[in-house]
């Protein structure tokens, strides 16, 4: 029931976000319409990080309490996170082609996101390959914790290795160049994507529970 409410909220949010992205927000002067990709790219990246933090927390809870619910939340959140990481990379790539002139470059944040993508793909692969359900949940929780602990290390190593990405434009006092309408549009999309994430995880948890009941 609650999941359904979040689903409809997400639909409404996405509709508002779409209208604002294409109708309300002005065309950016230097980049043109290409800049509108940001309204997908940034929220997707945000949801990806949120999802992996949830995987970390749920994994800790699972190992401490062994509640199957925590395991399902971690599983569903990881699946959603991987999808949104892929979406963020794809959207960034499409934006990068006209802006940087290349689909892919080994820039710091691109690389970090790509590494996260493969870490959590490995996590999902592991879940699929362990026959015993309870054992799979335990192993996945360990990988979920280590993957999250690894994020700062990956971030700094890749940052020192090379950097080209423009610094983030939200939440920095000197980056006041952003039009308030653009900012509001971006935030509306972030909210919409977060609602969508909650809906996906809720739905995923229910499917996982049904599957376990069916197999039990």
């Amino acid at each position, binding site marked *: 029931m609650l999941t359904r409410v979040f689903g409809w909220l997400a639909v409404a949010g996405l509709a508002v976000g779409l209208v604002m992205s294409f109708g309300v927000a002005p065309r950016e002067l230097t980049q043109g319409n290409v800049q509108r990709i940001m309204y997908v790219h940034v929220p997707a990246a945000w949801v990806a990080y949120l999802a992996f933090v949830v995987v970390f927390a749920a994994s800790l809870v699972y*190992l401490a309490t062994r509640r199957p619910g925590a395991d399902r939340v971690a599983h569903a959140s990881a699946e959603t996170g991987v999808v949104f990481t892929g979406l963020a990379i794809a959207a960034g790539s499409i934006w990068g082609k006209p802006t940087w002139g290349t689909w892919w470059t080994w820039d710091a944040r691109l690389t970090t996101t790509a590494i996260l993508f493969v*870490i959590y793909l490995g996590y999902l692969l*592991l879940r699929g390959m362990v026959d015993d359900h309870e054992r799979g949940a335990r192993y996945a929780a360990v990988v979920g914790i280590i993957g999250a*602990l690894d994020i700062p290390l990956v971030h700094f*190593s*890749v940052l020192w290795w090379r950097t080209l990405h423009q610094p983030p434009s939200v939440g920095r006092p000197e980056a006041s160049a952003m039009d308030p309408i653009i900012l509001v549009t971006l935030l509306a999309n972030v909210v919409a994507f977060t609602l969508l994430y909650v809906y996906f995880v809720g739905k995923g948890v229910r499917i996982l529970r049904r599957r376990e009941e069916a197999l039990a």
Partner: protein
Amino acid sequence: MSAFARRAFIVLWKDFAIERRSKETLNALAFFALLLLFLFQFSLGSDRERLTAALPGLLWLGFVLSGLLALGRSFVIERENDCWEGLLLAPGDKSAIFLGKLGGNLLLMLAVETLILLLFGVFFNVDVGASLGPLALIVLLGTIGFAALGTLFAAMTAHVRARELLFPVLLLPVQVPVLLATVKATEAALTGAPLASVAHWLGLLVAADVVYVVAGLLTFDFILEP
């Protein structure tokens, strides 16, 4: 010696004794290291300058590939020899087993890495002796990080279908920070730059080692459960 340290040491000694008597893994790994060298030479051609530029990366590629083979086997032998139950029944804190296994794997990897370094010195004309001190430190720091998570994931994948596939797929992405740091630091060490110029990379390696070893100690219990 506390009980914990003694338990860890017993596991380490057991692995060492098995390897000393059978020499199974070490022999195969030495041969594999030699083959890797051929492979690098053939795939990059004989252009000496290009080889020199790629050397730090190749060196760590050699360490990683041989390390994957070495670590991947470390818990499979327990299963093949029906010793897994013995590990489960061992009294006390299971993280001592992790520490012992990690020590054994570390010794094995360091032995192979010494061999690879020697081979590089002979075949690729690397002056290993000139920067031995810094190089030894970097190799040690990098190998601890690699072996810590490798030991943990090897214990995990010992029970999984397609473990040869899943082990590298799980381990390699998580090891990216260690790989970047060691390659950059090795590059500096081989060109004779002072270690202070790569202090931030060494700091990252130390941080990674601490995080991985502590995470391994804390989570190993959950992996060894029946």
